[in-house]
């Protein structure tokens, strides 16, 4: 006879017995009784927990986040409300060997994408050689003609990159998409690590987890690397849209940890193609701008005319080589989802190597044959709008209604260039503490890549969780959550 106990009265062992595996690769469990080697210590800890202990730890963690004011604005609900960032208690663990491969693969990928950007905005050899069609490049929503011929500092377009990886049912990490414009989330990675060390100090130490706290220092030196020649003590600033932006917490957090000024467009003055910020001491020259504003809003003279977020003349100062931007303008051409389909070719073209990390199979809706094939099987595919981010403008075939599919089919046919399709992948799952019990939820991984003098990748990154049962959408802007990611020392 099975006595049904209330979830809150179950200890760790009983809770885990009810863990349900489906066809996805589970990060922790081979089978319910066999956790993977790297999770054994965590498994033992969970088994030893009495009822309510996990709930108490969760409460302690939530309090810590609350006290630090770590919030995120979620749009799409009726009001854009500020919520405490949903964090899951249980760490996601990656072995040293798995990480080594990820690191090599990402280094290779970002190196190639950076070369691609330089080529596309200068000699366009890859287009001439027919590897990537010019039409696809020029019709990218984020291609910036104004960047043609502009020399960017150190030829580095991609200072900060967040590439999203997923694990397929075979257990391999593959690249889902690149975020090359203004990737965010690193502050959640840093603050959740701090909380985890508070909640699970013993486990953390025993597992021998590689540190990530050096991210701010590494980001700062990566930014300084971009300073124009002859500036021995370069002034680096972080340009934010302001206190009402959804990611403002992260902007302020990073600026504070790096010890740099947090500026808004209205603090900047451009004079004689040199950028200054207005301080009480006078006008202070600015050398490097870590900009957390989209290209379009940076300079009302050149881009979006109505924008009050940037400053007049920034682009000319950039063109004159007097200020550096991280990331460079125009990088969106390389994270357009249609270009994503060509990345394996891009890697082979510039580096003469096979991609270490595979990409997810991608079908271009602008190709009639591929479009037909997908439209007849929409329930099997995930269809994405090429220029979007944050999980918006997406159709998840298997979770959609016939009505939604037919509406999407119309959108695809109306603007085929705007859509790509990928087979639905069952993302890997990881145990999460949800509603008083431990259940599997789909996760992905966003490591943060810094491109300075060399490419540095902080071990781990943000593991994002689709908090709704069965959901495959992990984006924080749509109610996703996060986990701390532990990369083991050896």
């Amino acid at each position, binding site marked *: 006879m099975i006595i049904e106990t209330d979830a809150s009265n179950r200890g760790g062992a009983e809770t885990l017995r009810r863990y349900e595996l489906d066809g996805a690769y589970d990060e922790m469990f081979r089978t319910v009784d066999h956790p993977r080697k790297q999770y054994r210590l965590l498994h033992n800890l969970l088994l030893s927990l009495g009822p309510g202990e996990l709930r108490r730890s969760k409460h302690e963690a939530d309090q810590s986040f609350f006290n630090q004011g770590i919030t995120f604005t979620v749009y799409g609900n009726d009001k854009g409300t500020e919520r405490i960032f949903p964090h899951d208690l249980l760490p996601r663990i990656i072995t040293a060997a798995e990480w080594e491969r990820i690191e090599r693969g990402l280094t290779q990928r970002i190196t190639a994408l950076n070369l691609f950007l330089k080529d596309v905005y200068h000699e366009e050899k890859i287009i001439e050689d027919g590897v990537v069609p010019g039409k696809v490049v020029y019709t990218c929503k984020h291609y910036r003609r104004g960047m043609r011929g502009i020399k960017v500092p150190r030829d580095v377009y991609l200072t900060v990159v967040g590439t999203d990886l997923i694990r397929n049912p075979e257990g391999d990490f593959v690249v889902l998409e690149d975020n090359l414009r203004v990737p965010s989330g690193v502050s959640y990675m840093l603050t959740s690590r701090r909380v985890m060390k508070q909640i699970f100090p013993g486990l953390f130490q025993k597992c021998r987890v590689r540190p990530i706290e050096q991210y701010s220092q590494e980001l700062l030196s990566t930014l300084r690397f971009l300073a124009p020649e002859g500036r021995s003590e370069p002034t680096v600033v972080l340009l934010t849209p302001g*206190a009402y932006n959804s990611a403002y917490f992260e902007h302020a957090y990073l600026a504070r940890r790096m010890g740099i000024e947090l500026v808004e467009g209205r603090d900047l*003055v451009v*004079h004689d193609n040199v950028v200054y910020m207005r301080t009480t001491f006078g006008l202070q020259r600015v050398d490097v701008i870590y900009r957390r504003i989209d290209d379009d809003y940076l300079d009302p003279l050149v881009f979006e005319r109505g924008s009050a977020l940037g400053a007049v003349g920034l682009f000319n100062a950039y063109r004159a080589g007097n200020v550096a931007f991280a990331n460079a303008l125009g990088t969106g051409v390389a994270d357009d989802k249609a270009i994503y389909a060509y990345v394996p070719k891009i890697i082979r073209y510039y580096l003469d190597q096979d991609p270490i990390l595979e990409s997810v199979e991608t079908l271009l809706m602008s190709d009639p044959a591929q479009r037909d094939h997908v439209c007849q099987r929409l329930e099997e595919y995930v269809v994405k709008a090429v220029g979007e981010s944050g999980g918006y403008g997406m159709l998840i075939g298997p979770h959609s209604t016939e009505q939604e599919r037919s509406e999407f089919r119309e959108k695809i046919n109306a603007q085929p260039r705007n859509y790509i399709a990928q087979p639905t992948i069952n993302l890997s799952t990881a145990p999460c503490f949800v509603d008083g019990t431990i259940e599997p939820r789909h996760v992905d991984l966003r490591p943060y890549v810094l491109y300075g003098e060399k490419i540095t990748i902080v071990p781990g990154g943000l593991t994002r969780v689709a908090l709704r049962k069965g959901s495959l959408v992990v984006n924080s802007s749509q109610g996703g959550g996060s986990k701390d990611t532990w990369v083991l020392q050896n």
Partner: protein
Amino acid sequence: MLSRVADSLYWMSRYFERADNASRVLKATYNLILNPAKFSTEERWFRAVSSLAPGAASSNVDPQRALFLLVADTEGAFSVVNCIGAARENARQVREEISSEMWEHLNRLFHDVTGIELQPNDDAGAMRAVSLVREGSYRFSGITAATMNHDEAWHFIQLGKYIERACNLSVLLDAYFVVDKHADDLDWVGLLSSCAAFEAYCKACTAELKPERIANFLLLKPEFPYSVRYSLDRMHEALTSISNLSLSRRTEKVERLIGRLQSMVAYVQVDEIIAELHKYLAAITEQCRELHAAVHELYIEYPIEGAFRT
């Protein structure tokens, strides 16, 4: 520091002091009108309104509405609620510059005060809001002093607070020392209470309420925190500290203006000025205004020519 940030800190501080000043005056006035005296209730409210909302007062002040308007009127720029709201809004823009304790306190004070949901004729509610602000003001001063570095940001906060205080005191004194009618003892107590000064005054000057002594106490005494002299001295300190940090700026105009203001209170005796008190007080307010403009022009909104540093 960024000029915009200095400006927001300055205004956060000024608006908060403005709200606190209004709360003190309203509390004192409300207690006053409970007692019959030479001045009528209307005259007392008129005095309060004209010292808190200069330019907005009309001679027919409806006492019933006055309290509500000065506390809760969301249209009026001078109401306590609006001032606390403006202080909070400025603080929010520079949340990273102030300590988290300062922000939490100010935020909670704002919600507590607006949460009372005042209606006209709810005198008890209005006085509750006023008390919250009074208490909150003492606490905010303490929290600020204890949790911030006493750096440039701190000095701009002090500057805003004391410029506002100096102006408010001058206007308040002007309202009480009306030439054609002499206030009686109760009104003098009201004036001193508006400056939280009654006990301090008694300690320094005994309970004998002589107008010249009161004027001396509130204008010229360097020791009492709510005197004009004290406020000007703190302003001078703040300005000196700020200018020491920004070595190459041209601070002569600001130095001259604060020096002139200080000399107005440092080297006079009350019997020299009591006859022309109105002119004297008007001069102080006017010079404070000039000083504010000069500080703004030097540190915040300066023209870009000649402002470059490498």
